[in-house]
């Protein structure tokens, strides 16, 4: 297999507010979009001819990946105008594909090891994985190695083997993509028509972000593998422990304490006296003012966080301006989202371009939409739609 098709057109409705302005595949983990991890996994397996199916906010994909040169791959872009489904997306790539190819989702986090071996499999195969909570996914019903059917989000699991959305196909698949919207349906039709589809199980990581707070566990997984580096200026009295990666042009001011794994992007100003605790990713061009503590969180590009804040288990999207003494402490929050209980403790989920005045307190688990404004001394809770004003 020398070619891969990555489906990166989707919007990811359930990940709102983070997917209002970007495709799901461009969600950032440790300062890199999920899609980059997928491309790197392919390159790691020697697959450098990659067709990217893009749609929603495709310019962001173009701009970030360009011709693929920086990652050592050749990218061909194909547009899916309307995001109708994965089979429809794949069908758009028909004119750009070889005789056989891999198909992957651009918004699932994988590593080189996840698809090792699968790259040389015979076409007509699905990569599957055993998971603890199969009800969120497409469950694969097996007959030995052969796939009997794929059932999307079943009421009863019947099996803990799920579909990773990674396939090896020959061009035959295009005979089945026209009549359905999603690839599992196309596969079920192929099986019904007498084709053999084999399942290959992977032991490697495969993580899917379905809800906004899933970003934290994906970020944590990625940070475990990060390499330390420093392209910035570290002032006197700064303490760095564990693995810390600091981008070009970033200044870590005196007496800041950073305990890895932590990734900090380019052009940031951190501290003095800032405290960045493990499993935190900070984007480019971010300012963290003195005496602010951040733990197990993802902070986007251009964010400005004032002095004396506490931010735990939170995701803060790009361009937010947060004044002093922001409190986003984490706690277990059993609220149901789409009928499913959150399993993890979370602090705040904050959409892009929000402005929070001084001394705002966020109740654990609050979800704030994009471009919201909150006046000083307010307590926010629940779910705030985009462009909410809290006065």
């Amino acid at each position, binding site marked *: 297999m020398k070619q891969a098709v990555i489906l990166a057109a989707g919007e990811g409705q359930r990940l709102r507010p983070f997917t209002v302005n970007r495709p799901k595949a461009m969600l950032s983990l440790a300062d890199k979009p999920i899609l980059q991890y997928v491309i790197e996994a392919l390159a790691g397996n020697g697959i450098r001819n990659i067709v990217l199916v893009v749609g929603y906010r495709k310019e962001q994909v173009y701009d970030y990946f360009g011709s693929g040169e920086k990652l050592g791959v*050749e*990218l061909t872009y194909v547009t899916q105008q309307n995001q109708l489904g994965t089979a429809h997306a794949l069908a758009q790539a028909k004119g750009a594909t*070889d005789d056989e190819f891999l198909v992957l989702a651009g918004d699932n986090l994988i590593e080189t090891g996840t698809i090792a071996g699968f790259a040389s499999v015979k076409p007509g195969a699905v990569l599957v994985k055993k998971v603890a909570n199969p009800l969120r996914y497409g469950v694969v019903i097996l007959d030995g190695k052969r796939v009997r059917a794929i059932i999307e989000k079943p009421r009863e699991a019947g099996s803990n083997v799920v579909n990773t959305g990674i396939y090896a196909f020959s061009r035959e698949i295009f005979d089945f993509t026209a009549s359905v919207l999603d690839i599992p349906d196309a596969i079920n039709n192929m099986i019904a028509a007498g084709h053999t589809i084999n399942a290959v199980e992977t032991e490697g990581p495969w993580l899917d972000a379905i809800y906004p707070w899933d970003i934290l566990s994906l970020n944590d997984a990625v940070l475990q593998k990060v390499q330390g580096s420093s392209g910035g200026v570290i002032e006197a009295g700064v303490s760095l422990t564990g693995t810390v990666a600091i981008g070009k042009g970033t*200044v870590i001011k005196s007496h800041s304490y950073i305990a890895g794994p932590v990734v900090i992007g380019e052009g940031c100003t951190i501290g003095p006296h800032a405290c960045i605790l493990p499993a935190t990713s900070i984007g480019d*061009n971010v300012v963290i003012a003195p005496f602010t503590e951040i733990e197990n969180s993802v902070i986007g590009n*251009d964010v400005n966080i004032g002095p004396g804040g506490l931010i735990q288990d939170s995701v803060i999207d790009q361009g937010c301006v947060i004044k002093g003494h922001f409190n986003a402490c984490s706690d277990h929050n059993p609220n149901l989202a789409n009928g499913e209980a959150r399993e993890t403790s979370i602090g705040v989920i904050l959409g892009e371009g929000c402005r929070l005045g001084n001394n705002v307190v966020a109740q654990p688990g609050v979800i704030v939409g994009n471009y919201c404004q909150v006046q000083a001394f307010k307590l926010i809770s629940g779910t705030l739609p985009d462009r909410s004003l809290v006065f």
Partner: protein
Amino acid sequence: MCGIIGYIGEKRAGPILLDCLTRLEYRGYDSCGIAVKTDGSLEIYKDAVRVRELSRQVPLSEGTIGVGHTRWATHGAPSKTNAHPHCDCSGKIAVVHNGVITNYQPLRERLAREGHNLVSQTDTEVIPHLIEKYYNGDLEKAVAKALGDIEGSYAIIVIAAGEARLIAARRDSPLIIGLGDRENFIASDVPAVLDYANRVVYLEEGDLAVVTADSVRVKEGGRPVKREENKILWTVADAQKAGYEHFMLKEIHEQPRVIRDTFAEYVPGAEANGNSIAGDSLEDLLLLSCGTSYHAALVGKYIIEELTGSPVRAELASEFNYAGRVSMRNRAIVISQSGETADTLKAMKKLKDEGCQVTAITNVVGSTASRLADRVIYTRAGPEISVAATKSFTAQLIALYRLALPYARVDLRRMEKLTVGLRQLPGKVQQVLDNKAAIIECAVRLAAYENVFYISRGINYPIALEGALKMKEISYIHAEGYAAGELKHGPFALLGADRPVVAIAPRDGTYDAMVTSIKEVKARQSPLLALVEEGDEVISELADMVIPLPVVEPLFSPVINSVALQLLAYYAASKRGCPIDFPRNLAKSVTVE
């Protein structure tokens, strides 16, 4: 980033190399060169010009083996000497290189001690000399040995006068081999050779390839390896434009990143040692430039005057050369994307003769302007291919903000607002790009007219000029930028239902006066397109078309408005079917007066 190319086959190498090089110019174009093997020697042609100009200088050679290079300077200024290919002492071995050799300084010194004569300031030149040192009849071995001494990144192609083969190698820089019929190509990327070959071998990290007209052998760590052949189905434009239809649209969309990159370039230096950029004050400042850069200079005048309270002069370099006067105390900043604009360079020389301190803001490392200047501020926009400047203009504005902020005489609260606001700009620009649907709709309507006026006041007046310039240069619609208050001194006579007016009207100190101007325009039946802040109701009521834009500090509104006007011009030109990246009669870098 540079582009490299190699050809070996039965056809004349020169024209093929030059043709492929034009496709690599998006990787850099400050200088270029080729080497062609003829009989027992190498003919080398190179200069600090673009490929098109070099093509005119190169005589048609019979040679059928050659290498070529197009350069974007990192070590050593763009000049004939520093252009590739680089040779050994004998002129029998030549190398083209893309990448950065990190240990070139000690290697240079060692080679010089051993009697090698290195003539350029480049990191690359050590490679041919190292190969010469190790060469005793086996070029492949010599190249492998030379690469063993080198640290850093490289994609190289080596040609030797006595050999009917090319040697290629890569580490951390891309390189591919295009397979033809009794001919082979080596290039930085696939599009460079797609007109000649559609079967391609991708070289992997650390590969060394020996390429003849009918064979390709690849080795990794000295052992032969098999690299598979790939058939390429896509067409040339795709990869270079990375999915976009035109370079201009690609460059417009790059702007959030360009702003962030420019920040990363400045932050440590500027905040720790801000005053060193332009000396100890910005008094008696003269800003000089041409074209779009002149509009950046005009915005710079407003920025610096507002922040420091000192008056600033902004002048056209082409006029200053004939009539301009400076005082001894003058400090000057010249702005030129290419750093090669003839009028600007002439003005620089005049300023230097008068004893002025000159700072250059330029996008090209090592350009003539950067060498003439006492201080240089580099914008980090990267190569700009589209003739219409977009991202380089934005980067110039960012450079001016960064330059002026350390001198600002404003209270701390305002300073905090400004520094926070500046950091928010990339995201705000992204919002403009993400919500371009409204702009496209307006552009399609404007495309039907032959005359358009652009008006504004204050810091956005230069943006009216720039918006009109973008529109006229790519869509060929006659567009004029005017200070809104000047409309009544003449242009009123031209207004009417077939002459739309584009008004830039953020809610700053000029807002009420803009409302008055807009009413005057409406009274004369001109269709009105207004660029307003989100939530604006007064002007939105008056206008026929509205482009709502994210709210920013008034000082930074030129960035937001100019991006919106770039998109407006682009989609109007697109609707009219114009050759957007290469408009008629225009050149990217104007090196004649």
